[in-house]
């Protein structure tokens, strides 16, 4: 079967081995070092409920050795401990508890503050539960899969299998998830036989059994993420049966975390499933009938069971050679590296028995984290999770009842036993004495103690320690206090690898225009602008600006929002949404339009074009298209308007042709339709350009003569190529967003979102002229009436300076901040730096000069220049 490499030592693997069983057989007793005190920890539960066997396997930290099948060549590294887990000099911490008081983080390194960052680094280097790899390739993304089923059964024990089989037989689609293998934790015996029979029945009933999968939480919906099996499932069941069983009670006594102290089922599993002797000489502390089965399993593998202590009734049928110690209780386990002896309190007095194993079986606590976090989701428990310690028949019956959709049964929480000291929370290394200190300091409820001591907050998520913590609080309260209170259960119920959580997280969606390949061919530097991938520059942006000012430039505007608005109330909708006049717009005419929100603030802007038959084409900004569609529909819907809003943004390409030579270029390529070179401002027309049917819109965004050609997306490449070829001798070239930034700044056009704030009404932007306040009704009107009755306190202004301007710099006047620069660029044409920014009125007037990062700048009217051509 091969070998594991455990910290550089070969460890033999036999069939059926887990990493834990192989290591234990090879003599490994210390599997980890504890979080704070570096105490030795060994195998304990063998059911995935404790932190003791977490190792790093092939570079992946936090792997449970007891749940992971061993395979030849696996590199296993034990965590914690320096220089090694076996010889850990940091174990000195165990003798220095006074330096690591409970609430350590809250009490130390408060002053001086800088000390904390150093201390934190030091603390981090000696604590923790494994190390994330910082080099090497990032782990593969885990695939995500969505599943819908009628019934999800969590847990493949007797109750879970019975529930699944029953539900499957009734025709439901059933998925059963089991974190190990079905029956894999069970030693031969009646339980395993029953599991095998039920598993068979379930499979025949069409149940899908998924092994090696862990349900990590129950969310609203219900939604259950399931990890493992190299994928993450998001299961949306109609109903959930939680059959996660119970774990044996974690007893708190001095030395309870020494290697060699076992939960009964753990020892029985190692013996019965893996054929490995958990101890040579063992003492059993029993309070359950199940303990007698553990005794049998131990003796079968050859462990000498020297004594069993417990109530008289249990001890009547012990085999020969096993000493019954009636009413004996363990008070202490002693040993340096592992258990060497146990000390008992018996009615006859103290006793000490030499042994290398102590097997504890005192009761069961339900593994009910999932059930308790389910809230009012349709989840029911079945089997031991609701009735810890129930019989096989009861478990099966409970499963079958749950399949029929029974009401949730109340869970009963085991009463944990607390000694004078001992480790309560194995994960976080919190002892009973730590809880005493916290209690004395005044932390008096489960939730608060949890936060202060971090008990129950480790990888086991309270599976073992929550009942003990609850028992502690109960024991300290007056007898009249409410029954056991446990910390709130929250997802994840089990540790989850980050990669499993990241399943299904993709790069942000990216939009491309139909000209994407053309931009690449032209050597454009592409970047994201909102959701779109757009060209920022093809070469020298200054040259691109010059082309638009002196010849002709082409800009891909296939990103603009474009909406066809039709239907009987199309006119009513645009009139309500936009604050300009719309009723006087004849077909073929267009108007710059602002959409306001009910607060009078500018949401977006665009061009409104009246078409034939009472239809309209409305454009919006590239980043605002989705919101504009939603807004149009919202206003229409709430106003009861019968109208069709068609978002054509992704259907259409768009090319802006701008510059003094644009009319010449267009005259060469227009095949049908009006002469686009003489299209006046405020006009639009249909035309066939270079064989492509276009709607041409005269626009003013960059200044000078400019026309947007909107056309079907698939024709973009043909149109673009034809324009570049036909305009070659005119100096036509493509320009990108960097050049656009300069061009629009020269025109003084703000970018919504960059130059504007969420509470900008049109007047603050200098766009008051675009509002028809005499229109009786439009969205935002009454707010504008209110706002405009007050003097303007702040407005968007242009600034001009000789020195460099940097976006983001404050405007200063006599040392006081009076505004902020939101855009800046050097305009070669104007031979100056120009920018837009916010300026506040000072004593009722707007300053005429401000300082911007030490540079004196003049506040000037915008546009900075009227570029020629109309």
């Amino acid at each position, binding site marked *: 079967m091969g070998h594991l490499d455990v910290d550089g030592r070969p460890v033999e693997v036999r069939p059926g081995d887990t990493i834990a069983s192989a290591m234990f057989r090879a003599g490994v007793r210390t599997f980890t070092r504890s979080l704070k005190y570096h105490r030795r920890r060994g195998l304990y539960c063998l059911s995935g409920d404790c932190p003791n066997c977490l190792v790093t396997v092939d570079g992946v930290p936090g792997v449970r050795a007891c749940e992971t099948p061993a395979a030849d060549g696996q590199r296993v590294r034990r965590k914690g401990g320096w220089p090694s887990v076996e010889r850990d000099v940091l174990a000195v911490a165990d003798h220095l508890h006074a330096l690591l008081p409970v609430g350590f983080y809250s009490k130390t390194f408060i002053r001086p503050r800088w000390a904390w960052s150093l201390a934190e680094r030091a603390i981090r280097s000696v604590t923790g539960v494994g190390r994330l790899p910082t080099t090497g390739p990032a782990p593969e993304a885990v695939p995500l899969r969505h599943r819908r089923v009628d019934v999800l059964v969590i847990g493949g024990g007797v109750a879970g299998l019975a529930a699944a089989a029953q539900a499957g037989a009734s025709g439901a689609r059933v998925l059963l998830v089991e974190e190990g293998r079905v029956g894999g934790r069970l030693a031969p015996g009646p339980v395993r036989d029953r599991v095998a029979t039920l598993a068979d029945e379930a499979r025949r009933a069409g149940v899908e059994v998924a092994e090696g999968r862990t349900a990590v939480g129950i969310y609203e*919906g219900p939604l259950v993420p399931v990890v493992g099996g190299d994928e993450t499932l998001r299961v949306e069941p109609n109903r959930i049966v939680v059959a996660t069983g119970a774990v044996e009670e974690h007893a708190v006594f001095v030395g309870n975390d020494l290697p060699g102290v076992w939960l009964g089922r753990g020892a029985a599993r190692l013996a019965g499933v893996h054929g490995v002797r958990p101890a040579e000489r063992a003492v059993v502390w029993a309070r359950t009938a199940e303990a007698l089965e553990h005794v049998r399993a131990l003796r079968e593998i050859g462990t000498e069971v020297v004594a069993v202590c417990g109530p008289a009734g249990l001890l009547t049928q012990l085999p020969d050679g096993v000493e019954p110690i009636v009413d004996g209780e363990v008070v202490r386990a002693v040993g340096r590296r592992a258990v060497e002896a146990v000390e008992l309190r018996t009615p006859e007095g103290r006793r000490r028995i030499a042994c290398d194993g102590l097997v504890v079986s005192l009761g069961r606590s339900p593994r009910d984290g999932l059930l308790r976090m389910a809230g009012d989701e349709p989840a029911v428990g079945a089997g031991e999770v609701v009735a810890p310690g129930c019989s096989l028949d009861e478990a099966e019956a409970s499963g079958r009842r749950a399949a029929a959709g029974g009401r949730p049964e109340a869970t009963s929480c085991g009463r944990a036993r607390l000694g004078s000291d001992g480790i309560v929370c194995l994960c976080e290394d919190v002892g009973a004495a730590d809880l005493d200190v916290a209690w004395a300091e005044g932390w008096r409820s489960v939730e608060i103690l949890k936060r202060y001591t971090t008990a129950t907050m480790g990888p086991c998520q309270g599976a073992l320690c929550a009942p003990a913590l609850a028992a502690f609080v109960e024991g300290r309260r007056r007898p009249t206090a409410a029954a056991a209170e446990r910390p709130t259960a929250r997802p994840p119920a089990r540790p989850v690898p980050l990669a499993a959580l990241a399943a299904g*997280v993709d790069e942000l969606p990216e939009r491309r225009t139909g000209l994407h390949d053309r931009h690449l061919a032209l050597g454009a530097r592409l970047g994201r602008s909102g959701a779109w991938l757009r060209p920022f520059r093809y070469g020298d942006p200054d040259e691109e600006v010059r082309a638009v000012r002196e010849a002709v430039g082409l800009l891909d505007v296939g990103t603009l929002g474009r909406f066809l608005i039709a239907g009987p109330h199309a006119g009513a909708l645009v009139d309500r949404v936009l604050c300009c006049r719309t009723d006087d717009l004849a077909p073929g005419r267009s108007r710059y339009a602002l959409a306001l929100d009910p*607060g009078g603030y500018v949401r977006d802007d665009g061009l409104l074009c009246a078409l034939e038959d009472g239809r309209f084409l409305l454009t919006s900004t590239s980043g*605002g298209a989705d919101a504009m569609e939603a807004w149009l529909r919202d206003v229409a*819907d709430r106003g009861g308007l019968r109208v069709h809003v068609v978002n054509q943004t992704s259907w259409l390409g768009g090319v802006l042709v701008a510059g003094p030579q644009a009319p010449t270029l267009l005259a060469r390529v227009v095949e049908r339709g009006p002469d686009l070179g003489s299209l006046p401002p405020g006009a639009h027309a249909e035309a066939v350009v270079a064989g492509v049917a276009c709607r041409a819109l005269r626009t003013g*965004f960059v200044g000078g003569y400019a026309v947007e050609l909107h056309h079907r997306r698939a024709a973009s490449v043909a149109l673009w190529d034809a324009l570049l070829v036909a305009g070659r001798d005119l100096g036509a070239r493509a320009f990108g967003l960097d050049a656009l930034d300069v061009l629009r700044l020269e025109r003084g056009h703000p970018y919504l979102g960059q130059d504007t704030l969420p509470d900008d009404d049109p007047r603050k932007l200098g766009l008051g002229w675009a509002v028809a306040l005499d229109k009786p009704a439009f969205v935002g009107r009454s*707010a504008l009436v209110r706002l405009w009755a007050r003097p303007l306190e702040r407005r968007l202004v242009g600034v001009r300076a000789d020195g460099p301007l940097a976006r983001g710099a404050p405007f200063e006047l006599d040392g006081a901040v009076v505004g902020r620069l939101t855009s800046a660029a050097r305009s070669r044409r104007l031979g100056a730096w120009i920018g837009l920014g916010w300026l506040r009125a000072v004593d009722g007037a707007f300053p005429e000069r401000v300082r911007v990062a030490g540079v004196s700048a003049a506040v000037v009217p915008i546009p900075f220049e009227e570029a020629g051509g109309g």
Partner: protein
Amino acid sequence: MWHAGPSFQAEVERAVALKIDCPHCGPRPFTEFDYGGELVLPEDPAATLGAEEDLRRVFVRANVAGVQRERWFHAAGCRRWLTLERDTVRNRVVGAP
């Protein structure tokens, strides 16, 4: 004007799963929807409100701890608005008025 900078992105899938029953598309996770806030009736075009009243109209919402009527836009599906009633305490849709 052009919008600059990232302004909206698709939802990263999230685990909390409020479910909304869209009358056109069926029950879907809320991540397919955009939240539109409490239902506000459209402005009365003819109304001339005082400044105080107008401020209330724009800024003041009931913000109830309990059932409220609110608007959701089914962005990933039919792209229509729904009005529904949600219990803001339990975060559950309880009905459609």
